[in-house]
């Protein structure tokens, strides 16, 4: 059973990573920096619980805020470039973060041993969960509570005007400007929120795995981050959740017996999905059809109330 709890935890922080890219992608920005924000969250939270002896929850919040601050700072220059140039710029940032942690030493002595991040060796001893006697099940429930809170907030945001503004910017920047939307403000806000969510995910990841090192936060992770929302569709957070479950639960774990062929199949499936469902598994039309299916009257009523 522990295997499944552990898998659910993995899917949990991958979902957070996907959701962090989801809100950025809604504004039409393809960001490969999410793995970098995830790394910042992981290291900050790890250092706070291990070195400063904090409780996990405040450590996670600070980790999220730290990643958000970084995302905001990166957002201003990076979001002035578009399309492929933005992909390159954010990729470079992600790699810079990884290389920073590759060179980052900050160890303090605790009794006999020295603890803390040690460059390429990584950061071991992030054992807040076992030290406080959490069982696998409890950790899983905790992880998914965070996922539910974040997903719920984004789900609600999708229904708010700000959510529609995000999508409007993603649809047509010129038209968005002409109806009075400040592009920079909207994009940087989305990036900052995305950074916060990635930071939370990274904090959870660090405490799940107990040992982090720079190689965990490579380009592959950044690709996963944008793959979930692209695969799932940008109309609903459920698409991202389903995609994370599908990729981590089925493609990565379920197809483990295929060995190296698994990666080939993963690539092929992305290509297939982009051809068959160019706007994601759950695109705008599907999302509306689903909504109508579930509650035709309620949906209409909601729109009318609006």
């Amino acid at each position: 059973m522990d295997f499944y709890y552990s898998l659910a935890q993995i899917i949990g922080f991958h979902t957070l990573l996907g959701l962090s890219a989801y809100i950025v992608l809604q504004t039409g920005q393809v960001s490969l920096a999410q793995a970098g924000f995830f790394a910042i969250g992981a290291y900050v939270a790890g250092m706070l619980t291990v070195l400063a002896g904090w409780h996990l929850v405040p450590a996670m919040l600070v980790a999220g805020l730290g990643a958000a601050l970084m995302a905001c700072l990166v957002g201003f220059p990076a979001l002035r470039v578009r399309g492929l140039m933005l992909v390159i710029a954010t990729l470079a940032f992600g790699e810079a973060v990884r290389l920073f942690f590759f060179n980052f030493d900050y160890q303090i002595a605790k009794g006999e041993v020295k603890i803390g991040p040690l460059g390429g060796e990584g950061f071991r001893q992030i054992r807040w969960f076992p030290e406080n006697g959490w069982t696998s099940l409890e950790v899983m429930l905790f992880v998914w509570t965070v996922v539910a809170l974040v997903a719920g907030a984004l789900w609600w945001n999708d229904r708010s005007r700000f959510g529609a503004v995000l999508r409007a910017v993603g649809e047509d920047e010129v038209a968005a400007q002409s109806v009075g939307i400040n592009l920079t403000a909207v994009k940087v806000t989305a990036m900052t929120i995305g950074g916060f969510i990635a930071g939370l995910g990274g904090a959870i990841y660090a405490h799940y795995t107990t040992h982090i090192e720079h190689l965990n936060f490579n380009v592959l992770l950044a690709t996963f981050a944008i793959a979930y929302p692209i695969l799932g569709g940008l109309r609903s957070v459920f698409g991202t959740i389903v995609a994370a479950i599908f990729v981590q639960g089925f493609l990565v774990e379920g197809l483990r017996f295929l060995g190296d062929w698994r990666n080939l199949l993963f690539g092929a499936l992305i290509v297939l999905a982009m051809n068959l469902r160019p706007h994601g598994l759950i695109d705008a039309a599907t999302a509306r059809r689903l909504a109508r299916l579930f509650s035709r009257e309620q949906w209409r009523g909601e729109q009318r109330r609006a």
Partner: protein
Amino acid sequence: MLEVRGLSKHFGGVRAVDGIDFSIRPGEVFGLIGPNGSGKSTTVNLVCGLYQPTAGEILFEGKDIAPVPTHRRLSLGLARTFQNIRLFANLTVWENLWMAENAPSHRAETRFLKRWIGGRSDARERITKALEFSGLAHRADDLAGSLAFGEQRRLELARALAAKPRLLLLDEPAAGMNAEEIAQLDERIRALQQQGYTILLIEHHMELVMAVTDRVCVLNFGRKIAEGTPAEVQADPAVREAYLGTAQ
């Protein structure tokens, strides 16, 4: 209302707009016409801020608006439609209008959080009215991309109007319309003028321009070649030459 002085926009060596002047009086429908490539759309893009002018001034209600970023010009009272319709295709008709409610002119009405959470109910009445005026009320919940061409044009106009502008820039609103739709557009423009809007109409369709405008400015190769009432402009030999070529 709007005064353009010595306005120029050069793209490299191409002088898309080359030192034009015109001024629009409050309450009039001002036509901007000219053959293809004469600089009409560039002029609109300069006025609404998508391009920065190479030289010259754009004064709106006596104020130079060159340093005002595009997204703030809406709150000054400048709204536009596009030659090739630019709706948010994957947003609903309702949401498209909701976006224009983002204008800072509406911001004073409610506090930020209230707008974020309950902005819909505040904007409800205005949007419903705009939808009824455009005859799109029954399609409020449909995606904008699924509308017919004429409906999309009407929605785009409604979106521009949702921001309560004082000057409306219509960039070739009749493009792709049939005779019946153009007749409707003619009526609509007159109705808007009655309601007190000042309109800058960029158009290819001469009948429409001659019918609804008070004054017309004719551009050719980025320069102004004539200005006056529709009748004066039609009689101008330079205009005939630009449109029909020189009689040999």
